[in-house]
């Protein structure tokens, strides 16, 4: 739990630093710390947005308020695709699966018992998956309609 909390805090900091990204300047004026951020969209050179905030305001306001309202006219998708996070995430996943494979590979008892008990296990799993899938399929309309309403 503690680890997750720490990670969430770091996450928030990274979102701050990525959204108000490399062109962030911190200056000192009349006894106040000012944060200025300028963001450019690569395929639309006319679109240049800047925001200047006092540090006290910056901290006071909530993350989404500052980011979304200040950068209202920025296409977030293009910012998103610039980010490396998705790729790193995928590499991490593949690495983890590789280690999981090693774990299965080193446990020779598990590899051997796959033949004997594997069939019963597989039958239970397949039935479990199929019926939970059918169940969720019936109620999925409720969730899809909520998502569609949001899209509109």
């Amino acid at each position, binding site marked *: 739990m503690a680890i997750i909390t720490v990670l969430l805090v770091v996450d928030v900091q990274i979102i701050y630093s990525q959204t108000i990204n490399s062109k962030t300047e911190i200056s000192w004026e009349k006894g106040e710390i000012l944060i200025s951020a300028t963001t450019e969209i690569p395929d639309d050179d006319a679109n240049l947005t800047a925001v200047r905030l006092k540090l006290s305001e910056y901290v006071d306001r909530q993350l989404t308020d500052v980011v979304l309202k200040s950068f209202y006219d920025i296409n977030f998708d293009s910012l998103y695709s610039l980010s490396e996070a*998705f790729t790193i*995430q995928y590499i991490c996943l593949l690495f983890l699966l*590789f*280690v999981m494979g*090693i774990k299965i590979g080193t446990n020779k008892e598990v590899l051997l018992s796959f033949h004997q008990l594997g069939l019963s*296990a597989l039958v239970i799993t397949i*039935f479990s998956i199929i019926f939970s*899938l059918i169940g969720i399929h019936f109620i*999925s309309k409720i969730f899809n309609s909520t998502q569609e309403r949001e899209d509109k």
Partner: protein
Amino acid sequence: MTLHILLVIFIGILFGYFLAPEILVNNIEFIIDFGLCLLLFFVGIDIGRNGETFNNIKKYGLKILLIPLITVLGTLFGSAIASIFLKLSLFESLAIGSGLGWYSLSAIELSKHSAELGTIAFLANVSREVIALVTIPIIAKKIGYIQTVAVAGAPAMDTLLPVITRATNSSTAILSFFSGVILSMLVPILVPLMMSLN
């Protein structure tokens, strides 16, 4: 994506079976924990970046509980039907199904009763995770996003969360996380309960 996953696991198994360097094997739990933390960290960035995510939870309201509830009911129903075809009793089969994909816990819990049950629980729940890994990208494409959460079961909150996030969208990732948390809370209750009814 499915091909990458299968290939990586297969190479991992071969690597573990033939080479198995001792430093790696001794520290495998730490490596997995570390990898998982790193992964959840990036999934967190993904979820946090989408400003709409938390509004979505509010919009879903109590409906969000329907997903884990139906997943449990579907899984138990499926396990009950499976027991007809197997040598296992109804409640043994239900107890194995109640692992909901959390193989370490369900296997340890059931191996208290018999090694055979423990092994079946391990294999059943590992295969649930593996089947989910392989089918989530296909289900997301062909059937729907929400359905991927049902297949995942309890690992929808950790090991399978990045797979679901990649195959679907961040709204579904949030639903997946909540579903996984609730299912993970149910596993330690359901498995012993089913065995006590046996």
